[in-house]
């Protein structure tokens, strides 16, 4: 279907709208399942991430309820282990990462002036595979009542050996975790290759690398981190799988193995992962702050190169997670130095953001409030991070609530605040509607106050010695009041999130599409498109002349961009089921290992069938016409 579409709005209804009136519900559903449109895939990522985010939030609320007072027994210790494991795993792999992916998908092609990503079906494949991984990680919650073994992952999100070995985790809980993470890893890496090639190859004429929006730049850095760091955890998980199912001794000291091998491989992935989570939010904030300060981003190339530096240094700091394992003075000292080095590019960014808002004409919209909240909260998380960089200090803080406070300031006060800023900023682009600003202020207030109420006291109880991951604690240690406050704060956040979801649904249902192409008077190319954009994004590929094309053109500061006159052949790939097939085949193949752990022959048969299905999917993918 080579659509010779010359901007006919009747042919291309709004991609986010619930289909035209005469379409049946089934056809509408199928059009979403078969889509390879980056905007629809972005929305699918966003909605799935929101669902998992709520799931992870509910797990957090149960954890906080259990810890509200000393000696409570809301859940038993085994369930508590499963809850904190799944809370961490869910928030990282199924919450923040896919939420960032939602923005990559929706925005990157628009920001570089392209019609889609370079491999649209691979993009759909990544989404469906991600969803399969999310389902496999969470299906144990449903399975638990029907089986007589532990199936909910309960080895911590870091899955330290030897706890995760068969001897100490005999059920299938770790197998589900390994299988889910492998699937999510493949999904992320496939998306990584796709976006790297997209950003390098599909930029509109005139869009040089340094004219790219900072969000696109941070996406590029993140994709490199993904494709280079996920192989490390893939190997770590494969070795764990071999230990558990084939009786090898990679991590088992009795057989000559070394549990520290797991920690090295895991944190070689795990620390870049931290930047995979935070850099997209930094990119979002670098778009939001200039727009609502009516100033260009201060020292944009410095922000970009700092992002690259953070990414590079991210591969050289993993052992700061392992100071307590006794790596020796030389190793501790060098990893302390590299860790402290990261404070430099991070500090550069923070000062650039401050200089951006300095003297600007600030518009305190909800998006801007969340972006400002990001800068403050992330800075606090960064400061406690510098404390951990010092090995002697870290020896005191490791495994205490101080660390929990630190990474929640970075990943919630940082990443989630940044993502919320992004939602408020780009929601008009994605839906044509505004989220309510008055509700937005209340929601920001609740989330900001709730966040600090929950996590600030954790610094204090952590410094007072309260360890992480404990199911309960005794009275009389001075931890009661801070814990009670923390639990209250968690419920304040929950109300904020609840109001946010209600407002999201309310605005989608009730409001008129009044946003127009450029409601915030912003600067990058996505604001040239309609809100929501047409299926093919741009009728004519724009030519770019500056790093703020739309702002420059709107305000007569320069040519900005131009839309050449004439007609362009627009090729929209037809809908396809192949990505879903291949995703199911890959997930099925990896799930066969899970089955093999319980019944070897059944697993082997399942793996063979999955391989056949995979080969069929690959060849029919390759031969599918129109792509």
């Amino acid at each position: 279907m080579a659509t010779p579409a010359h901007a006919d709005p009747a042919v291309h209804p709004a991609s986010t709208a619930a289909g035209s009136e005469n379409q049946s519900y089934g056809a509408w559903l199928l059009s979403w399942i078969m889509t390879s449109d980056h905007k629809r895939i972005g929305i699918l990522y966003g909605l799935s991430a929101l669902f998992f985010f709520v799931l992870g939030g509910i797990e957090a609320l149960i954890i906080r309820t259990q810890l509200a007072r000393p000696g409570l027994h809301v859940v038993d210790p085994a369930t508590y282990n499963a809850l904190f494991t799944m809370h961490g795993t869910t928030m990282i792999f199924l919450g923040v990462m896919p939420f960032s992916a939602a923005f990559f998908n929706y925005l990157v092609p628009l920001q570089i002036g392209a019609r889609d990503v370079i491999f649209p079906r691979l993009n759909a494949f990544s989404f469906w595979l991600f969803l399969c991984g999310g389902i496999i990680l969470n299906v144990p919650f449903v399975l638990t009542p029907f089986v007589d073994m532990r199936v909910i992952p309960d080895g911590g999100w870091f899955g330290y050996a030897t706890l995760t070995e068969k001897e100490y985790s005999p059920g299938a809980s770790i197998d589900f975790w390994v299988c889910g993470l492998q699937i999510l890893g493949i999904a992320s890496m496939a998306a990584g290759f796709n976006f790297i090639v997209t950003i390098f190859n599909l930029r509109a004429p005139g869009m040089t690398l340094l004219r790219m929006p900072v969000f696109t730049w941070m996406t590029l850095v993140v994709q490199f981190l993904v494709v280079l760091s996920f192989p490390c955890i893939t190997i770590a998980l494969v070795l764990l799988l071999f230990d558990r199912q084939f009786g090898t001794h990679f991590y088992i000291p009795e057989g000559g193995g070394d549990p520290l091998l797991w920690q090295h491989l895991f944190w070689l992935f795990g620390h870049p992962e931290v930047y995979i989570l935070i850099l997209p939010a930094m990119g979002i904030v670098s778009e939001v702050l200039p727009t609502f300060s009516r100033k260009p981003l201060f020292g944009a190339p410095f922000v970009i190169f700092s992002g690259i530096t953070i990414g590079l240094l991210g591969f050289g700091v993993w052992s700061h997670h392992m100071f307590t394992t006794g790596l020796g003075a030389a190793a501790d000292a060098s990893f302390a130095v590299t860790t402290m080095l990261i404070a430099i590019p991070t500090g550069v960014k923070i000062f650039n953001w401050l200089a951006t808002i300095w003297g600007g004409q600030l518009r305190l919209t909800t998006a801007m409030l969340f972006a400002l909240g990001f800068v403050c909260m992330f800075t606090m998380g960064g400061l406690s991070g510098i404390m951990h960089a010092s090995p002697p200090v870290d020896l005191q803080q490791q495994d205490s609530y101080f660390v929990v406070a630190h990474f929640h300031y970075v990943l919630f006060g940082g990443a989630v605040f940044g993502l919320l800023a992004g939602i408020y900023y780009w929601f008009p682009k994605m839906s044509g509607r505004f989220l309510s600003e008055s509700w937005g202020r209340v929601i920001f207030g609740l989330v900001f106050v709730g966040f600090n109420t929950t996590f600030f006291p954790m610094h204090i109880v952590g410094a007072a010695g309260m360890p992480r991951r404990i199911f309960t604690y005794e009275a009389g240690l001075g931890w009661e009041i801070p814990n009670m406050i923390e639990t209250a704060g968690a419920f304040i956040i929950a109300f904020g999130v609840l109001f946010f979801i209600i407002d999201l649904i309310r605005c989608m249902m009730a409001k008129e599409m009044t946003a127009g192409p450029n409601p915030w008077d912003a600067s990058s190319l996505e604001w040239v498109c309609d809100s929501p954009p047409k299926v093919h994004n741009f009728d004519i590929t724009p030519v770019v002349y500056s790093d703020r094309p739309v702002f420059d053109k709107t305000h007569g500061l320069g040519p900005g961009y131009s839309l050449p006159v004439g007609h362009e052949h627009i090729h929209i790939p037809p809908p396809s089921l192949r990505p879903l097939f291949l995703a199911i085949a890959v997930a099925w193949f990896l799930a066969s290992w899970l089955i093999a752990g319980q019944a070897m022959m059944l697993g082997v048969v399942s793996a063979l069938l999955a391989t056949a299905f995979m080969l069929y999917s690959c060849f029919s993918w390759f031969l599918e016409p129109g792509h």
Partner: protein
Amino acid sequence: MSTATADLTSPHGHEPAPEYSVTGVPAYKLAMWTFLGSDCFFFGSLIGTYMSCRGKSLNGPYPLDVFEAAVTSLSTFDLLLSSLFMVLAVHYAKLRDIPKFTFWTVLTMIGGAIFLSFQAYEFTSFVHEGLTLQSNLFGATFFVLTGFHGAHVAIGVLLLGSLLWSVRGGHVVDAGITTEVIGLYWHFVDIVWILIFTLVYLLEFTS
């Protein structure tokens, strides 16, 4: 994968429209380079694991009990030779000389298959000598590392087979680029073997 198909056997086959690429590098080639970068970390982790476990087996069989220098040298020579065939296949794919392209691609595949047969022989003879995944750390790290490399070779053979079938069937737009991209993968897998041969095998014979 594009809308147009070119009849490569005909000298008058129409040229495919040049692909839009800011860098000038075709998308599949850039994607392959990115994948190979990722694969460096994949094999880096595996080889790192092997090296960090080297000499830590609590019991035999030890590497020198099972390694046969002559056999592995021969299979290494065979794999390196297949890289030469691959270069020739790419050369003739770019010249659109389909018979010669077919000849060298089939030879490359045979080279890969011979290497895999050597590996199958090696694995079975090692198991007969008591080296298994479970026997000791050397067995576990050796089989996982060389097994993953063998899987890469097997996938390479499959890719070459698919390439041959699709070029001869006219399913690819530009046989030259497609062959070159698969060639990149093939050479990469070869280079990894050179590292494995040096670090896993040769290093044992130096002491």
